[in-house]
């Protein structure tokens, strides 16, 4: 009945102690590097201008000419997101076709494994897509603002580039995840690749593609607001201006508009996805 007693000392104590020490050793310089100082928020000198800024939040600005400006900025934001996404689609679709293994001719005769030469053509496209989406859209926006001047053009191009990378990658994955049988059969029967795509892959992939695209459109709206802060037009640029002028009421109206916009986009995207996906 007697089993050898386990040692009384906690075997987890030493690892826990070490882990804590490592965490502290890493976080301590982190705190100093990030110059963390919660005190500034409650500092008396800061409190007064901040207090007057925040107290101006209510009531939100609602003068007639300001509302006209707000409407203009909101429409601009929507237009940037929509135009940017449609440009991104133009790049993403061909890129996804090139990057995807789903339409490989060499794979048909090789049991689903493409020829190494074919893969060698695919990799540069994939690498390009990775670079496009790995640089954040706001960096592209800043670069275009500097290159092409202030304004919505920079926002459109930034969204087009980043989202082309994201959509291209996801589309390629969707193409590869559907049943390859129909496309292979068509390719084997002498169809061209585009024909095989249109009749063999697209019918299966369309729902998921639409769902992801609509979700990205929702993200593009947020992104176009955020990109305004570096001068790429729309609601964000107005918000940045009002903040610099400490116009609390205007900032409040614009934040409310932004929230309404995001809510609306969410609703619309849910509607679209529920209907077609």
């Amino acid at each position, binding site marked *: 009945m007697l089993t050898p007693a386990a040692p009384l000392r906690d075997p987890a104590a030493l690892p826990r102690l070490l882990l804590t020490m490592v965490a502290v050793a890493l976080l301590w310089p*982190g705190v100093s590097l990030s110059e963390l100082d919660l005190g500034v928020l409650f500092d008396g000198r800061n409190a007064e201008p901040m207090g007057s*800024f925040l107290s101006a939040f209510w009531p939100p600005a609602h003068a007639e000419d300001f509302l006209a400006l707000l409407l203009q900025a909101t429409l601009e934001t929507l*237009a940037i997101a929509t*135009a940017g996404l449609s440009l991104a689609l133009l790049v993403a679709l061909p890129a996804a076709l090139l990057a995807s293994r789903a339409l490989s001719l060499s794979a048909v005769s090789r049991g689903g494994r493409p020829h190494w030469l074919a893969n060698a053509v695919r990799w540069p496209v994939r690498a390009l897509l990775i670079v496009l989406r*790995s640089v954040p859209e706001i960096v592209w926006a*800043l670069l275009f603002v500097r290159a092409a001047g202030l304004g919505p053009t920079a926002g459109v191009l930034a969204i087009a580039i980043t989202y082309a990378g994201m959509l291209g990658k996801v589309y390629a994955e969707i193409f590869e995840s559907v049943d390859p049988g129909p496309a292979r059969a068509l390719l084997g029967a002498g169809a061209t690749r585009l024909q095989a795509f249109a009749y063999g892959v697209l019918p299966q992939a369309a729902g998921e593609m639409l769902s992801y695209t609509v979700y990205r459109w929702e993200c593009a709206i947020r992104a176009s607001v*955020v990109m305004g802060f570096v001068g790429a037009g729309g609601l*964000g640029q107005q918000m940045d201006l009002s903040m610099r002028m400490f116009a609390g009421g205007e900032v409040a109206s614009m934040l409310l508009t932004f929230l309404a916009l995001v809510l609306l986009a969410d609703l619309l995207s849910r509607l679209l996805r529920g209907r077609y996906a």
Partner: protein
Amino acid sequence: MKGLSRLLLPLGLLAAVIAAFAFLQLDAAALLSRDGLAAMAGYAARFLQPDLSAPHLRAIAFATLETLAMSAIGTLLAALLGLGLALPGAGRFGLLAQGAARLLLNALRAIPELVWAALMVLAAGLGPNAGTLALALHTAGVLGRLFAEALENTPPEPADALRLAGSGRLAAFCYGTLPVLWPQLVAYTLYRWENNIRMASVLGFVGAGGLGQMLYLSLSLFQEAQAASVILAMLLMVLAVDALSGWMRLRWVRA
């Protein structure tokens, strides 16, 4: 009728796209003209020779560390604040507190990090402190909601049993609920940290420290060679974080 409504939506989308381009009046002609393209190409060419001198690389390394520190400290603060708000948010302190906590969480979450950063720069001055606070505030909203959901899905029996043996509320929470909740808290927090590293690198555009501030400054000073190496550093950091998180997920989440 059904066919018409199916046709209506694609047509509507097409109209929206055309309207968008018309509204923006994109000056494609100017942009794609010979002069426009030449100007763009000239601008791009100046990025082709990134500044890889030792002092600049050292400055980039420091800014990268600053970015990582901002994201880590911001996420940690957010996890603490999020847990503090998730407890009332999951209805532990009555309905009134629940409503208030949810409202606060939604407000924190709805405002993007960069807008928070712009506000924090006004409140706390330029520098990484503003970025850290901005990340903490937005992420607290995101994590608080996830934590509250996890808390609601945690079985109450272990903590109930401890209460029944006379334990205090906090002790029962720590012994009965936290061990069940802990893996989810850690998983959510790490996942947000990954996101925040990306975000922290661009918060500097509004003056909130890190690599972003460096990029913004060098672009303002027309130092394209320096800017190019900062962009390269950002790219490498994002790729490294992606690879690391992908490897960790493969190893721990699917296993």
